[in-house]
């Protein structure tokens, strides 16, 4: 008979073996990444500018604010190739570990199964063109893969608080490191800052749990993001891309660029990942019928969303299979500003307004999959993911970057599905226990679902 300690040791050994195997798999995968294009330029960065500081000075003044990730790349490229491979494999493992922690599967699945499921999701649901551009090119990999891992690590302490659990000192230190790193990658930094703000506000005002450490972390995330964004190289790089990629780009106004970004986000995700929206609307409908049996409005919302995004899936998939535009495609067509037509077609405008309204309804519904429980995480990953893609409308490389900028959006939409599935899962082991202080200053615990007055649903009672 094994003692509890021996069992724990056995479990730890299995966990260690699993993650070692996972690391080896990613090491082998990362080893196929060879230097190409910009990688060669970064490799000779120190030689070209005399020193690392010389390179850094040139970079921030002439080529952008991504000084931390690309500075690390410059250093790594001075070392033997396997060093990059080793660090990259570690980043994959960190990404999966933190994604699983944030998705919070509870105890429904073994965490190893969760990790494998998520890895399979990344490599099957995210389009190959996106993966090739974003994670199989060193220069992009250190931003899209490492930056995405950085976002997850940076927001993790706040996610813990939102789930009524505590974070450790180690979590906080890692969050600070990740925050500094990610702030230097503008697309990831925007997501991170938005997520930090929303989570901090949610924890402070909805959960009534104000934490000064989190306030400082959030403020630092915003300030660092603004700092790196305002570095002179960013504006110069943008102008260079206008000359090199799209000379007419400055003809478009900011509202035009926002419309353009929305077109980019919606068209690309619906075309390449229509299943995601079908799944999310299905989860909303399932939860409405499962948990709100007497509530006609929520059930109606569920039906409307499922029908709308179900038809969207049929139209988008039908177009791909047949190779022709679907006769109902006009319902889901977004207005593109990059054309030479004038005026506005009323039908197109109406369809686009309904389209965006449906996205808003879907994202907002994810907040309240369970009655009486506000889950802000799928809300953040859903709108944040789409926002990172929309932001590309403000870059003259909207065409030149290809599918690469979709990585963050696709990944977080995938996370939204995982988070929502967990949230919707019947009989899950979510921790709804809130620890707070009573009027005498003593710690008290209550269940935010079962102990709230007027709450008809008991999550632990089923």
């Amino acid at each position, binding site marked *: 008979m094994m003692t509890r300690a021996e069992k724990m040791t056995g479990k730890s050994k299995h966990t260690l073996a699993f993650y070692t195997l996972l690391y080896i798999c990613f090491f082998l995968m990362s080893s196929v990444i060879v230097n190409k294009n*910009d990688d060669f330029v970064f490799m000779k960065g120190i030689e070209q500018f005399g020193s690392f500081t010389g390179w850094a000075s040139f970079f921030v003044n002439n080529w952008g604010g991504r000084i931390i990730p690309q500075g690390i790349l410059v250093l790594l490229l001075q070392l033997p190739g396997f060093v990059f491979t080793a660090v990259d494999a570690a980043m994959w493992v960190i990404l999966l570990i933190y994604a699983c922690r944030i998705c919070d599967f509870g105890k429904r699945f073994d965490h190893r199964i969760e990790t494998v499921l998520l890895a399979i999701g990344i490599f099957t649901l995210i389009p190959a063109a996106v993966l090739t551009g974003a994670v199989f090119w060193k220069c992009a990999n250190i931003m899209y893969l490492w930056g995405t891992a950085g976002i997850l690590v940076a927001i993790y302490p706040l996610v813990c608080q939102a789930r009524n659990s505590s974070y450790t000192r180690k979590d906080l230190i890692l969050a600070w490191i990740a925050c500094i790193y990610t702030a230097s990658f503008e697309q990831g930094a925007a997501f991170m800052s938005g997520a930090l703000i929303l989570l901090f506000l949610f924890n402070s005002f909805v959960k009534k749990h104000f934490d000064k450490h989190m306030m400082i972390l959030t403020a630092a995330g915003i300030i660092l993001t603004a700092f790196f964004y305002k570095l002179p190289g960013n504006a110069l790089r943008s102008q260079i891309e206008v000359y090199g990629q799209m*000379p007419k780009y400055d003809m478009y106004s900011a509202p035009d660029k926002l419309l353009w970004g929305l077109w980019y986000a919606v068209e690309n995700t619906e075309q390449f990942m229509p299943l995601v929206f079908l799944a999310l609307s299905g989860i909303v409908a399932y939860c409405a019928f499962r948990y709100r049996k007497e509530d006609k409005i929520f059930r109606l919302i569920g039906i409307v969303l499922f029908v709308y995004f179900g038809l969207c899936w049929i139209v988008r998939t039908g177009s791909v299979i047949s190779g022709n535009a679907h006769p109902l495609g006009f319902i889901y067509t977004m207005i593109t500003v990059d054309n030479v037509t004038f005026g506005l077609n009323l039908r197109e405008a109406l369809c686009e307004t309904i389209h965006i309204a449906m996205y808003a309804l879907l994202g*907002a519904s994810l907040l309240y999959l369970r009655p009486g429980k506000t889950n802000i995480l799928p809300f953040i990953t859903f709108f944040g993911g789409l926002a990172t893609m929309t932001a590309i409308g403000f870059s003259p490389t909207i065409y030149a970057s290809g599918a690469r900028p979709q990585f963050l959006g696709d990944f977080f939409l995938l996370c939204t599905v995982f988070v929502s599935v967990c949230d919707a899962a019947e009989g899950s082991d979510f921790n709804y226990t809130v620890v707070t202080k009573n009027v005498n200053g003593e710690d008290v615990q209550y269940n935010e679902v079962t102990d709230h007055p007027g709450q008809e649903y008991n999550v632990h009672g089923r």
Partner: protein
Amino acid sequence: MEKRTRELMVIGLIVIAACLLIFGLLVRYRQENTEVTVFAEEEFDKGDIEQTAFNIEAVNTGENGTLISGWFLIPGLTYEYYNYGNDRHDSGVYANMRLCLLNEGKVYVLPTKLEDRPDVTDVMDDGIDYRDCGFQSFVPPACSETMENGKIGFLTRDPDGNETLYIEE
């Protein structure tokens, strides 16, 4: 407030905010595409039309207004830059032009959209890719009289934001 009511209110507010945002964007988009802005001629620096090359290729009038299409460029005007990503010194054009109508000291700036015209680059054959030098401009019915009686001009903007008006002789 009952939780369910609060939940519905939050959902409703998010949907309304999204609708207002997209409505605002579309209204603004329509305005920029259809409305003519009027300025006094002296507000702009004048450029030498002889230094430009252009061609008005088609003028099509319909019920909703007139479409003018053609191309416009300033031969040889490029901007040098260093592309660190591929370690190359290069140069490129900057395309920012709006077609104008001039009448009685006023400049009517028309909604204009630019497009790629590789055929023009081929004809110019001076080693420069003029890329987005094609244009389509819209003249609303209210400006049709101005179009008949006035001159055509080209209002350009350089990367520093300086505007220059080139008036057809």
